[in-house]
């Protein structure tokens, strides 16, 4: 048996044997990986930098210089309000449904068909937003008109249903519903994953104690998944805040700030406002739209950070 020195670095030995060629290959490849990583950071920095430089002229301009004759803050405030209203409305509608969908797939549907059902929910996420927009204006909006008239008649004393009810269906409520359909798969994907990960021993323990299925879900699955569901809801909110085409197509806008969800006069959202006005704009008007885009960027970033923070906090515990 030949003596084999285990302390010799085999890699070095082989590298020396092949004349360093393989080490060059290693260097090129790892450099390429680092370059790709840095490119991504540069791209993200670029997004922030270009939005700031292009938006800056509009932020600093006086009210008289801007196309609408109002200062940047006055211009963006109602849009930011509309963005948050649509997003929060969508989240309120979507979260309970998304949790129900996730529970249905993980704990109620027979396992054999659960996979297929999951596939269909994922398909919902893949449908382009322009199609949701067309569906909202041509199908859901008209169908919702009688329901909104009923809301105005029966619940008109609530400010959100004060009316007068729109006869075209191009209202904030319909936008909220469509956005809810769009973010539901995102939230339910997160919820589904965590519900499926609930430790088996907890679930079986609960059932061994005589819990019904709902009692088992309430005492083990829901507490286990709570923080993930919250963060999933925030991710969905981030998506709803930035959603453009569905809102641009459906919503009939007047610019005023109002909580009235079923009337013809609604505040626009930042994203929809950009899509509607960008093609016909030039000069400072473009800078103004880019500046509002910057505000949207900051709002969605804050939402996403909050979601990540919740996840991180729950992982530590």
């Amino acid at each position: 048996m030949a003596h084999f020195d285990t302390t010799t670095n085999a890699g070095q030995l082989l590298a020396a044997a092949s004349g360093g060629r393989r080490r060059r290959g290693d260097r090129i490849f790892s450099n390429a990986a680092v370059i790709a990583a840095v490119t991504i950071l540069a791209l993200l920095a670029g997004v922030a930098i270009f939005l700031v430089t292009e938006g800056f002229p509009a932020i600093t301009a006086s009210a008289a210089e801007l196309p609408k004759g109002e200062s940047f803050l006055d211009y963006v405030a109602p849009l930011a309000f509309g963005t948050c209203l649509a997003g929060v409305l969508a989240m309120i509608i979507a979260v309970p449904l998304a949790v129900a969908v996730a529970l249905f797939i993980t704990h109620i549907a027979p396992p054999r068909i659960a996979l297929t059902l999951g596939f269909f929910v994922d398909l919902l996420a893949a449908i382009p937003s322009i199609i949701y927009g067309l569906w909202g204006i041509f199908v859901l909006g008209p169908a919702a008109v009688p329901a909104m008239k009923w809301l105005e008649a029966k619940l008109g004393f609530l400010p959100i249903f004060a009316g007068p009810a729109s006869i075209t269906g191009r209202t904030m409520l319909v936008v909220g519903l469509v956005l809810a359909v769009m973010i539901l798969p995102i939230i339910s994907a997160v919820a589904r994953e965590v519900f499926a990960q609930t430790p088996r021993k907890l679930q079986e323990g609960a059932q061994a104690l005589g819990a019904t299925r709902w009692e088992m879900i309430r005492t083990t699955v829901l507490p286990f998944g709570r923080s993930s569901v919250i963060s999933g809801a925030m991710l969905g909110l981030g998506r709803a805040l930035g959603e453009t085409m569905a809102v641009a197509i459906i919503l009939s806008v007047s610019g005023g700030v109002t909580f009235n969800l079923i009337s013809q006069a609604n505040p626009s959202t930042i994203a929809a406002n950009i899509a509607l006005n960008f093609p016909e704009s030039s000069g400072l008007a473009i800078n103004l739209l880019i500046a509002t885009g910057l505000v949207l960027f900051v709002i969605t970033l804050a939402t996403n950070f909050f979601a990540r923070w919740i996840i991180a906090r729950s992982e530590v515990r």
Partner: protein
Amino acid sequence: MTPPPDTGLAAAPERSIFAQEGGGGALPGWAPYGAFVGALVFAGAVEAALGWFTIALMLVFGALLSIVAIYAWSRTVEGRRRAKDRAITMAIATAFGASMAPLISLLYEVIKRGARGINWEFFTTTGRGVVSGGGAQHAIVGTLIITGCAVVISVPIGLMAAIYMNEYGRGPLRRALTFFVDVMTGIPSIVAGLFAYALFELFFGPGIQMGIMGSIALSVLMIPIVIRAAEEVLKIVPDHLREASYALGTPKWKTITKVVLPTSFAGLVTGVMLATARIVGETAPLLVTTGVVSSLNTNPFQGRMQNLAVYAYNEYRSPGVMKQASYDRAWAAALVLIAIVMILNVIARLVYRRYKTEIR
């Protein structure tokens, strides 16, 4: 906690442990379905009697009624806790049904309305020089070019970054990358479009619009999706494969290209296809960067370029003289888009199922 009265259990061991709650019987297996159908029929009959029957109302009232019905029925036979369980199960199932209703309605409407606008002309002519009518050939070609360029940009960058994160990365750069990829996932699509516009405006002056700008905007959206997917599949390549390769004296880069990547190949292809499906229907960033045009343009580096999503939006927004024909074309474009998305989704999953490497 009071122990259950053992007399009851000892006397009737065949009865369920819910006996103490009252009831103690059991509903037949078809009870939930029976309650649901019964409630639907009842709701429909009442509405018909009142004279305002619609299918939507029947479903809404029927679903609510079925929850109440199953609760009352189970309460009398099985006891309070079982009844609550059944009612909530019913509520969750109907909520699931309600969530799937939009998908069904949407697919139905897109196919029904889209079929009207689909014809030979739609695929073979452009909108050039026609007042009303024309087809979407220029938009289909534009979609393929813009999306293709975005894939060509995103896949190498995204894949190499994922390799960096999984195989090389450590320390601050890796942590920063993990964090900022998360941030990037949350960028609204319109903001990505504004970024691409602002970038090109700096070099080419205001009003610049061309195909490649759209591809760059889409890349901003696609890269984080590719990284996420690639990271996921690279992570599950077991370390003993890498170690076996190193033990044979294979350098790291060859280990990655000859062992790690082939092992995860099916997952990578699936990830790229799903990412492509996510961006192929993007509208907002392209509205800002590639503009609206009615003639064919195959050069992504010069002039505006139409694509299907923007085409659908534009046919809806500024319909021609024949309004309905424009709307039909918008729906036809939507149908083609949905078909592309569905085909990509299905093929992606088939590829994964067929070619995934069994890892033991």
